[in-house]
Structure formats: structure tokens, C-alpha cells
């Protein structure tokens, strides 16, 4: 893992802010980029069609009145009062609008099928962040659980887990993730979370196991034991707070790595299923129009660069506390 240097605490805080902003963009994607208006009046009723696409809250705004309208062309009787900030669908194919350069109605231009690039970029944050965080949480949980039980139980279980970790570490992570994703069947988010998570638990397990074994020999352990603490209490109250900061660093870098893997798998056509965009899919699609357009290449690359750079810088925030 690289250590950044010379970056001020302010820079790191900005990085954390950027990560949070990206998460917000992913969460609010259906509101930010949608052909559906934010606010519309139809037959005397106020509707919020774009909000219907939101996760969890969406069903509050959904209904037959929203679904019965073709929002690309609502026709008479429907007044659009407020459009979405990026008023395009991420999958609306319009061949007459193909490969429009940035500017005009499309801030970042359109792709070879006339889909708005900004809308696709905004919706593309979703699989990337979902898989990035999902796979990392899976890896942390699995690694933490296996590593701590290996160290606490010892004996055969320890040997078995260490051997398994040795074997798993022999597979290059991306190869393992690809093989698992392939074996789990159809492309999609869940196989990727499982595949990437399973390919990344070993370093967490090793670290947790090593730290617990080290602490087991120390005074903290003996005195906690002497005052009657159970193993569970020891792990949850005493070990977890000690291990949390380094695990947070591992987690932040892990999210960056998982995003690289997700977009890599999608780039190879083995990730999310079209027409759902992912940053990797956008770049794979851009390869088809290299000689005609630069914007489908440059903007998704920039998005990846921004997200991954911010995650790496944010990881530093956990590593060394801000000094001002």
C-alpha cells in the first residue's frame, strides 16, 4: 500500500468529503439523472416520478399514475414542472443523437447509441460503490471471523484456517475473483461481491490472527482474563477498538481495490449486465469509438481516477490522525 505524503489534513478531509459525495451521487442517481421529472402535474395531481426510482423510499412515490406515462414524451395533459438536473435516461437509445460532443444539451456528450454520458456516469457509480463496499465488508467480516477464531481456538482449527489462507493467497486476487464470478454464473452484482470478497479475506484474517496472538502473550490479555472477562468480551471490548484503525485503513484501500476489480470485470464483459452502466463497461464501450470521440474515454477514466485517488487519500486519514 502506498503512503501518500505532504498532503495536508485539509486535503485528506477533502478526500473523505469526496468519497461521501460519490456515495451520495450513487444513492441519489435516480433523482440526479432521469428522464422522469422531479415534479409534474397530471390530471390535477402533483407527481414526483423521479423519486420513485430511489432505493427504499421509492415506493412512497411510485404508483400506477407514475408508471402509466411515457416520461420521454408525456403528451398533453401532463405539465412538467421541474426536470431532473440531468434530464436523460441512462439507457434511452437515441441514434440521431449519437456521439454528440460535450456541451449543448449534453454536458459530457453522448455515446455511440446516443445515451447521455453524464447520466450513464452518474448511474455507473452505483455498481462500482456497491461492489466496492459490499465486497470489502464481506472480506472484513469473513477475514475477521476466521482470523479471530483461528487465534482464539488454536489447535486443529487454527491449522486448518491458516492452511486455507495459504492456499487462497496463492491465487492472484483478480484471477480468483474472475474464476469465482464465472463459476457463480450470470454476470451481476452478487457474484462479484462474493467473488471479490472471497479473494480478499486472507490478508485480513492473517492480520487479525497475528495481532490477537501477539496480544494474547501480553499484559492486557492476562489482566482482563484475571478480572473475569469472557472471550467474547475480550474480543468485542478490548481487541476490536485496538484493531479498528488499521482495519479501517485496510478497508479503505480494499474498497479502492474492489472498485478496480469490479470495473475490470465489467470492462472484460463479465461484470454488470448491460444496459446497466458501470465505469468499466463505459470504458469497454468507448473502445468501439476510439477514432471518433475522445469524451467516452476521458470522462469515465477521470471518474475512476477521482474516486480511487480520494479513497487512497481517505485511507491516510485513518492511518495518521489529523494534526491541526
Amino acid at each position: 500500500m502506498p503512503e501518500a505524503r505532504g498532503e495536508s489534513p485539509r486535503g485528506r478531509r477533502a478526500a473523505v468529503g469526496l468519497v461521501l459525495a460519490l456515495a451520495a451521487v450513487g444513492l441519489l442517481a435516480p433523482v440526479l439523472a432521469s428522464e422522469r421529472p422531479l415534479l409534474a402535474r397530471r390530471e390535477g395531481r402533483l407527481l414526483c416520478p423521479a423519486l420513485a426510482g430511489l432505493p427504499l423510499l421509492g415506493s412512497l412515490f411510485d404508483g400506477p399514475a407514475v408508471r402509466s406515462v411515457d416520461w420521454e414524451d408525456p403528451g398533453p395533459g401532463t405539465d412538467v414542472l421541474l426536470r431532473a438536473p440531468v434530464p436523460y435516461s441512462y439507457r434511452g437509445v437515441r441514434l440521431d443523437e449519437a456521439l454528440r460532443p460535450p456541451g449543448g444539451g449534453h454536458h459530457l456528450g453522448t455515446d455511440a447509441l446516443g445515451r447521455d454520458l453524464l447520466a450513464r456516469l452518474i448511474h455507473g457509480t452505483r455498481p462500482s460503490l456497491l461492489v466496492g463496499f459490499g465486497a470489502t465488508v464481506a472480506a472484513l467480516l469473513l477475514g475477521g471471523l476466521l482470523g479471530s477464531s483461528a487465534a482464539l481456538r488454536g489447535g486443529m482449527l487454527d491449522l486448518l484456517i491458516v492452511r486455507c489462507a495459504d492456499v487462497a493467497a496463492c491465487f492472484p486476487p483478480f484471477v480468483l475473483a474472475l474464476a469465482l464470478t464465472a463459476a457463480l454464473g450470470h454476470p451481476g452484482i452478487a457474484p462479484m461481491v462474493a467473488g471479490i470478497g472471497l479473494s480478499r479475506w486472507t490478508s485480513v484474517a492473517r492480520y487479525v490472527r497475528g495481532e490477537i496472538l501477539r496480544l494474547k502473550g501480553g499484559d492486557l490479555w492476562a489482566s482482563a482474563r484475571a478480572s473475569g472477562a469472557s472471550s467474547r468480551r475480550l474480543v468485542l471490548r478490548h481487541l476490536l477498538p485496538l484493531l479498528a484503525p488499521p482495519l479501517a485503513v485496510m478497508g479503505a484501500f480494499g474498497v479502492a481495490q474492489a472498485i478496480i476489480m469490479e470495473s475490470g470485470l465489467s470492462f472484460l464483459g463479465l461484470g454488470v449486465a448491460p444496459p446497466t452502466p458501470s465505469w468499466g463497461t463505459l470504458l469497454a464501450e468507448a473502445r468501439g469509438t476510439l477514432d471518433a470521440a475522445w469524451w467516452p474515454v476521458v470522462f469515465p477514466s477521470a471518474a475512476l481516477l477521482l474516486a480511487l485517488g480520494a479513497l487512497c487519500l481517505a485511507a491516510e486519514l485513518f492511518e495518521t490522525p489529523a494534526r491541526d
Partner: protein
Amino acid sequence: MTSFALRRLASTVPTLVGVALAAFLILNLLPSDPLLTWSAEGAAPSAEALERLRHELRSDEGPLARFASWGAALLRGDLGRSLVDGRPVGSVVAEALPWTLLLNLCALLAIYGLAVPFGLVGAASPGSIADRLGGMLLLILYALPSFAAAVLLQEAFAVRLAILPLQGAAGLDSGAGIAARGLDLARHLVLPTACLALSGWSFVARYARSAFRSVLGREFLSVARAKGMSRLRAWRHVLANTAVPFVTLLGGIIPSLVGGSLIVEHAFSWPGLGRLYVASVEGRDYPVVLGLTLLAALLVLAANLLVDLLYLAVDPRIRDTFLGERGDA
């Protein structure tokens, strides 16, 4: 040295068995039957053909029986046959292997050849503008995935500037002279090598900088220089003292190169193992996928072995601890 190497080699045997078992399990026990997938995708094969395929893949037997027969064949060096064209997996792999080795070797050379001087410059003048700019550049390179770099470089150098080939490994027919073909190959190598080296490069350069910095500040250097040691000899001592972390890094770079080959070879249509792997996964050619997964794990195991042996070569202290004073090196 030989006996240590042999002992170290023997200790990898259980891992090797575990790796074979894991690779087999991943691709056999999970709930996707290649036969069913094929039937669903294209024209349904005849019942007779299905039967023959089932027999060949042994999907009518239990998993344990399948692993036993697969393992026995593996020990004989038989990896099965490709489901796409029926050729032995071994020969399919052997055809692509030299291309991948060439590309990875170039990437490794590029990583160390560029990262070490870069780290030296940063360490020699910490805090300077060059150092700070270098740090920013490294962060950017670290955060740019290889496939994004591949598409960006293709756009810039192959399409806009049109000075390097877009993809493939050779653009000339076999009638051209050897020098012309060598030059052509070198031109085709530039972009894939740069992409493959990218993440490893920033990784090593950051380590190089901190490793050199920690050695440059040490007292033994100023004493040696004060006693009149030449600048050149002093640098030799610096390099000798930083050799160990570079060897350790090798153990981390090789797996990432193997993984990176998949993407870079796919992006540049490089006729190596990575492209073969991706194509086999897409075509559900399980024997080839299994063989290549195994090969990748073997490469990592071999890299770890190499790293352990290199430790002995570069650090006399480790040599003494492991081999004792008897000098059986």
C-alpha cells in the same frame, strides 16, 4: 543452499495439493453446469452429443470421483482437452505462454528500471518540488486502473498521434526481415508494457523512496564518506542495504502482474494467456479455465519461492540465520 532450496520446495507440496483441490472445487462444485448453459444459449446439441460430452467431462460421476480422475491425469501432465476445438489444454497454453512471459518480463524490467531511479531522486532531495510533483504523479498512477490507462493510451498514441500500433503483437507478415520484425514487435510491446507496469511502478517507486531515505540518513554512510569513500562505492552500500525490501515487493508484484495480464492482454488483443483466459471464461471452456487458474497459482507459488531464495542471495544476515555458519551455501 541446495538443501535449503530442496526443503523449501518440499514445504510447498501440501499447498500445491490444496491449490489443485481449490481450483477444482471452484470450477466444479458451484451451481453452473456448462452443458446446461450451452443448451440455453445456442442451438440445443443432440442427445448423443450431450451424452458424449457428459462422459468426457465426467459430469455424470460424483465430484470426488471426478477430482480423483482429474488429479491422476494432472500428475501425468494431462490437463484435459479444450471444449472449443478439442486440442489438449497443455498445447493451447504452451502456444500462448511465450507471449505472456515476454510481456511480463518487459513490465518487470520497466517497473524496476524506472522506479528505482525515481525513488532515488525523491529520496535525495525530500520536500523539493520534483519530489512533491513525483508524489502526486505516483498517486495518480496508483489510482488509474490499467484498463483505463490502456484505453487512454490507445486513444492518445494509436489514434490521435498514430505513432504506435493500436493492438495485436505483430503487424508484418513473415516475409519481412528479422530486424524489421524485431522493431515491429518492440513497437507493439510499448503500450501493453506501460499499462501492465503502471500500478507496480507507483507501488515500487513509493517503497524505493522511503527505503532509500531511511538508508541515506544513516550514520554509517556519513562516516564512510568522511573517511574518504568514493561516492560510487557509497551508493553501492546504499543499494545493498535497500535490496531486501525490493525482493519482498517482488512477491507482491508478480501476482498483480498475473492478474493485470488478463486485462491488458484483453485490451490490446495480445495473444497471451490472459486473453486466452478471458476468452475461455466467456466461452465456458472449463478445462482451459481450470488449467490456467492452476497455472496462475503455480506462478505465485514459484514467485514466493524465488523471493525466499533471493533473500538468501541479497542479505548475508538472513543467509547466516538460515544456513548457519557452516557455509553450506
